[in-house]
């Protein structure tokens, strides 16, 4: 294969084109396909079934026309449904959909569905580590208002919202919605309904209006948030109100201490994070070094020490800190010397070896790798070639090999060239 300069430039350019932020709508479509009942084929089926069910329900119980459910539209949407949704969202304006939360919705009396909105009690929540399952305790004295049961196990209970007026038809209307996502600050939560409807709008905390059967919302504050789904069906309006609790991210206190090891290449970097009930993973650069508080031995240099923390709610946070390690065993190994008896640099010997536990030095002639000097003591090399007793000449080149064991029992092998000047 021949690649010319033009090809290479274009390839380099195109390979750099990777700065695209992840599109949540694409993820949502993938997730639906993999996990949900709304995969492309299933989506058709479920919307069809929902349409049929709704038709029967409404037709039989309320004697009204079956809802205008258009499965073919769902099919048409298919893969690009998410993008259309985004477009729809962006086209919504508050003025076009003026909804007063404080005003009771004007529903026809016989179809009226009212929801209590008095209770704001925070439910207790238990989240498993990977946020796949979550157990919630619903508020006790609510009739219709519901807490959201997130992630995978979409709420199977309270699927119907019953009319408040018991004298009305003893019926139920299949309006409900589910949510999935991670119940933490700054995480996207997906809200979805399979309810047949002409129009579906969502109100988050009384202000953020969105439209569509599937929307997402990112909550930036912890605590209980209100989610209201407004459904228009055959000129009737219904609302379903639920609460979702959003949990804070972990904010660990990080304590890093560098402990000096005299006569050792590496220094101890001790790391500690609290509170202890969070789970932590420590990384140097991108390598995980520990899942608990502890220490790591590092040579001199700067390191990016990062910590990932998961709290009791399954919320995740990452913290990074640059750690500079200094000191330790410092060696100076000369790369040249002048064995000419002028009193300056007449011998070759590394500085700093006196602080080590043990060392071995070997010097080889570069041409034939023959050993010309060897010592384990603090005896410098004067340039004499051991086998022949000849003196190294100006311009001669040698290779040294030094094996050092430091005071922490760490061993290091060093090798480089020595030139006689």
């Amino acid at each position: 294969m021949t690649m010319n300069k033009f090809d290479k430039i274009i390839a380099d350019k195109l390979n750099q084109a990777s700065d695209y932020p992840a599109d949540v709508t694409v993820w949502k479509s993938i997730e639906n396909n993999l996990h949900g009942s709304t995969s492309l084929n299933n989506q058709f089926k479920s919307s069809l079934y929902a349409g049929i069910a709704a038709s029967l329900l409404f037709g039989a119980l309320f004697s009204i026309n079956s809802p205008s459910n258009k499965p073919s539209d769902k099919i048409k949407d298919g893969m690009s449904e998410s993008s259309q949704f985004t477009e729809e969202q962006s086209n919504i304006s508050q003025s076009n959909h003026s909804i007063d939360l404080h005003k009771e919705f004007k529903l026809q009396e016989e179809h009226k569905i009212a929801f209590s909105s008095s209770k704001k009690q925070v439910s207790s929540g238990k989240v498993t580590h990977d946020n796949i399952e979550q157990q919630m305790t619903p508020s006790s004295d609510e009739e219709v208002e519901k807490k959201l049961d997130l992630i995978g196990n979409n709420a199977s209970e309270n699927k119907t919202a019953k009319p408040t007026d018991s004298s009305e038809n003893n019926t139920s209307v299949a309006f409900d919605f589910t949510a999935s996502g991670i119940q933490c600050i700054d995480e996207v939560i997906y809200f979805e309904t399979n309810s047949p409807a002409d129009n579906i709008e969502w109100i988050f905390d009384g202000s953020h209006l969105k439209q569509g059967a599937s929307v997402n919302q990112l909550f930036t504050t912890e605590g209980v948030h209100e989610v209201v789904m407004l459904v228009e069906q055959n000129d009737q309006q219904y609302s379903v109100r639920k609460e979702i609790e959003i949990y804070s991210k972990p904010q660990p206190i990080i304590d890093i201490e560098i402990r000096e090891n005299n006569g050792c290449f590496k220094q101890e970097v001790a790391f500690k994070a609290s509170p202890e009930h969070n789970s932590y993973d420590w990384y140097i650069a991108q390598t995980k070094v520990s899942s608990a508080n502890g220490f790591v031995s590092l040579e001199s240099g700067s390191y990016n020490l990062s910590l990932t923390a998961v709290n009791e709610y399954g919320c995740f946070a990452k913290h990074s800190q640059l750690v500079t390690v200094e000191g330790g065993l410092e060696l100076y190994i000369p790369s040249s010397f002048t064995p000419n008896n002028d009193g300056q640099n007449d011998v070759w010997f590394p500085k700093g070896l006196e602080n080590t536990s043990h060392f071995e030095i070997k010097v080889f002639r570069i041409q034939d790798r023959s050993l010309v000097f060897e010592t384990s003591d603090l005896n410098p090399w004067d340039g004499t070639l051991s086998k022949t007793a000849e003196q190294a000449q100006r311009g001669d080149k040698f290779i040294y090999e030094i094996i050092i064991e430091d005071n922490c029992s760490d061993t290091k092998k060093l090798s480089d060239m020595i030139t006689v000047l």
Partner: protein
Amino acid sequence: MGLWHRHEELQLVEGCKNQSRVSQQEVFSKLYGRLFGICMRYADDSEEAKDILQNAFIKVFNGIDNYKGDGSFEGWIKRIVVNTAIDNYRRKKVKPVVTDTDLTDRVGGAMEAEEEDESIYSQIPISEVMDAVQKLSPAYKTIFNLYVLEGHNHNEIAEMLNISVGTSKSNLSKARQNLKKMLQPLVDRLSQ
């Protein structure tokens, strides 16, 4: 080095094999940027690129058991993305598209081979280069990508796309010429 260390990668693969949404989302979010860049090269626009990438990710997660851990996880996913893009090209091929000749005419015919300083192309913004590649006909674009970006030879490309080796060579040459034509106004501006 890849996005993940080996042990992290294996944990993620295991998570994906167990249908963990968290693992799947980690893979999706970490790889989206660079994989979307690949899809953009094969697609006509960002919507088509999204469709390709979405289908590719579904194949990845549904076929995760086929990843045996021999090579890098990212490399395995990238191959699936490219294969999905090629499938997409094959599907488009049956639809009427701008023919090679049409496009050549549109951009002013084949450029004469000439000695030129090509280093000026390195000054052109990435977005303009991507835009030009996207404007190539599906055939030129796919062959240019497979040869220049993915490193396949003409024999391999011919087999993949069910075309002759000669067609592959000729289309690559025309793809280069058309790219240069499309980038020429920018080159002229940069040369001033």
